[in-house]
Structures are given as structure tokens and as C-alpha cells.
């Protein structure tokens, strides 16, 4: 949305900044000049100023010291159980990736333990639908991280063979947001490629 610099009334952001005293003197003078010619807007701004004064003059009643002590005590009691040190897959990734990985692993490992390579390596693997997953339980601290969304792969998955993939480069990611699982020593990262063409192999 474009705002007319000569018409502060077209910019609620500028009027907010004016009311909060956040405009530089020149910009504030322009708004004041505009308000002088716009009685309705001037009345609105004055009214908002009175609302803010009334609001600030009526803060919430403060709790007593005993109430604060109780709350602090409850916070302390709740923290040890809710302060895991181990690194977790965040739920947002875990639900989508975990569900897909479960199907992948179930089909792949079943065939693997039956002996030899999959009989039909090009046959697409099924991808679960949203109705196939039921969340039975979840740790309360993880609940805020729950994101419900469509699975990242909608098409059936085709396994890529070793010759189908070549690693050109490996980059590390910032992992301080907890969104990238850390690969531990001795663990082997796995690459899963999904083909957009259900009947063929990936590129």
C-alpha cells in the first residue's frame, strides 16, 4: 500500500508514530499541519491520546508478595521436568519426517530382512495420507512446537540407487535453532530422493 507523503491521513503507521512521539520534528510538523486542516482526524488523534492516558492511569492491580512467591515456587518446581538437556528433533519436523520415515523404513527394512535387494526397485513406495496418523500422546513441553501441515512428499516415493546420486558438496547448517538434527559420531547420514514421476527413477 502506497502512502501519500503530503497526506499523513493515508498512513495509519505515521499517525501512530506521531501520537507516540516517534516522528522526527520535521515529520511531526507535517502531520500537525495536516491535522490543522482536518478536524475529524485531529479529533480522532486527540481521542486516541485520551484513551492512552486513561489506559495508563488504570493499570492492573498488583498481586501481593505471597502470590509472587507461590508463582516462583511453581516455576521452580516445573522446570526440572521440563528442562531436557538432550537434543530433540523438533515436533514440526518430527511429525512429517518421522511419519514418512516410518513408512519408508517399514517397507525398506521388511524387504531388506527378507534377503537380497528389493525385487522391484522401481516400484513406488506408498506415502501415508493425513488420516493415517493419530497422535496418541505428546509431552506437554513439546505441544507449542506442534505444526500440522501436509506431508512434504505427496507423491509415491521411488528409491534411488547408488548410481543415481552423487554428492557434489556437503554444507553444515546453523543448528542453534534446533531445527537440524545433529549427526552423532559413528552415525551415517541418509539421503532420500523423491521422484516427481511415479513410474521412473529420480534424476
Amino acid at each position, binding site marked *: 500500500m502506497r502512502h501519500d507523503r503530503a497526506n499523513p491521513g493515508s498512513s*495509519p*503507521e505515521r*499517525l*501512530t*508514530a506521531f*501520537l507516540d512521539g*516517534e516522528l522526527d520534528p520535521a515529520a511531526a510538523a507535517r502531520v500537525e499541519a495536516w491535522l490543522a486542516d482536518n478536524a475529524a482526524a485531529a479529533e*480522532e488523534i486527540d*481521542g*486516541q491520546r*485520551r*484513551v*492512552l492516558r*486513561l*489506559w*495508563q*492511569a*488504570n*493499570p*492492573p*492491580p*498488583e*498481586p501481593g508478595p505471597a*502470590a*509472587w512467591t*507461590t*508463582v*516462583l515456587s*511453581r*516455576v*521452580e518446581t*516445573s*522446570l526440572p521436568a*521440563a*528442562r*531436557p538437556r538432550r537434543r530433540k528433533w523438533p515436533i514440526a519436523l518430527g511429525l512429517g519426517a518421522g511419519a514418512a520415515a516410518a513408512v519408508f523404513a517399514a517397507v525398506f527394512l521388511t524387504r531388506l530382512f527378507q534377503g537380497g535387494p528389493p525385487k522391484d526397485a522401481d516400484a513406488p513406495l506408498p506415502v501415508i495420507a493425513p488420516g493415517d496418523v493419530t497422535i496418541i500422546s505428546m509431552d506437554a*513441553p513439546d505441544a*507449542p*512446537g506442534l505444526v500440522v501441515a501436509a506431508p512434504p512428499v505427496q507423491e509415491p516415493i521411488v528409491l534411488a540407487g547408488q548410481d543415481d546420486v552423487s554428492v557434489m558438496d556437503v554444507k553444515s547448517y546453523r543448528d*542453534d*535453532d*534446533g531445527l537440524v538434527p545433529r549427526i552423532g559420531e559413528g552415525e551415517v547420514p541418509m539421503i532420500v530422493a523423491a521422484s516427481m514421476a511415479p513410474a521412473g527413477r529420480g534424476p
Partner: protein
Amino acid sequence: MAAVTAPSPPAPSDELLLERFAAGERAALEELFRRYRQPAYRVAFRLLGNEPDALDAVQEGFVKALTHLSGFQGRSSFKTWLLRVVSNAALDLGRQRGRRETLSLDAAGAADAADANLLTPDEAARGLERADLRSLLDQALATLSEAQRQTFVLHADAGLSYREVADAMSVSIGTVMSRLFYARQKLRAFLSQRTSL
């Protein structure tokens, strides 16, 4: 002989307190709590309208904020992170307990009652029953959308800057300023009908 007062040591930063807290130092938690309990409570009270629920939201907010520290580190201050979590906890609690919804539905009826007994600035200045006035402000706040309510309260009651509110709500500064304008406009419209504000 003039008395010489030794300067008091600077207060430890939030970052230092969080490090001490992570190391298990109880006093660090107490200091963080003492430092931010009031703005957290004010935000929660405005969004919930009563002390017990507000204290529950403060408690839940501190626990969540401290157990998910990776969610804010490097992006905003602890205060911003905490108030974001507390305000979200308060909104969640309000939804669970149906408090705001009830208030919104009751607002029309309450407004009719208020119409019969209009509050004037003089009455307010004379110290009109503070609880009545607070209730009226509460009803006015309930007319705002959830996003407007959260934005307004974080700015007006927690004293967060536009930038801090933007960080807390993951929106642009322009959006914050725009929401503030329309929130104040709605509050004014509601209150001006019931007072001679």
C-alpha cells in the same frame, strides 16, 4: 568530611543470568523472575482480566520460555521472548477457559448497562470506582481482534518498542504500527460511546 558512596556493581545482564540459570543457580532464576514478572503479569492480566488466570499464564510463560531458550537466542532479547510466550500462553488460557469469548458475548449487554450510567472524565478523575473503569477498559479490549489485542497490550502495558513487538509477534514494524492505530481507534470508538472521553 563528605561521605563517599561506593558505586553499586552493575546489574548482571540477562544473558549472564541465563548462563547461571543453565548452570543450576537458583538465584539467577529468582532475579530473572523479579526483573520481568511485572510486565509479564500486566500483559497476562489485560488479556485474561483476572489475577488467578494471569498468574497461571505468567507461571506457564516463565516455564515455557526457560525450557525453550533455543527459540529466541540470537534473535531477540529474553524480555521479548518471555513476553511473547506469556502473551501466547494467556491467549491460549483465555480460549481454554472461555473467558474472553464470554466477555465478548457479554460486552453488548454490559454496554447497555454502562449506557445507562455513562462515565464522564470528571467521574473518572474523581476516582470513579476503579474496578468499574477497569471493567470498561476490559470490555473495550475485548472488541479488538486477537492480533490487535496482543499488539496493543505488548506495547501499552509491557512497554515494548515497535521493533520489539514486531520481533515478539513475527510481523513487520509497519504491521505493528498499523495494528496499533486501528486498535486505538476501536478502543476510542467503544469508550467514547460510554464515556464523554
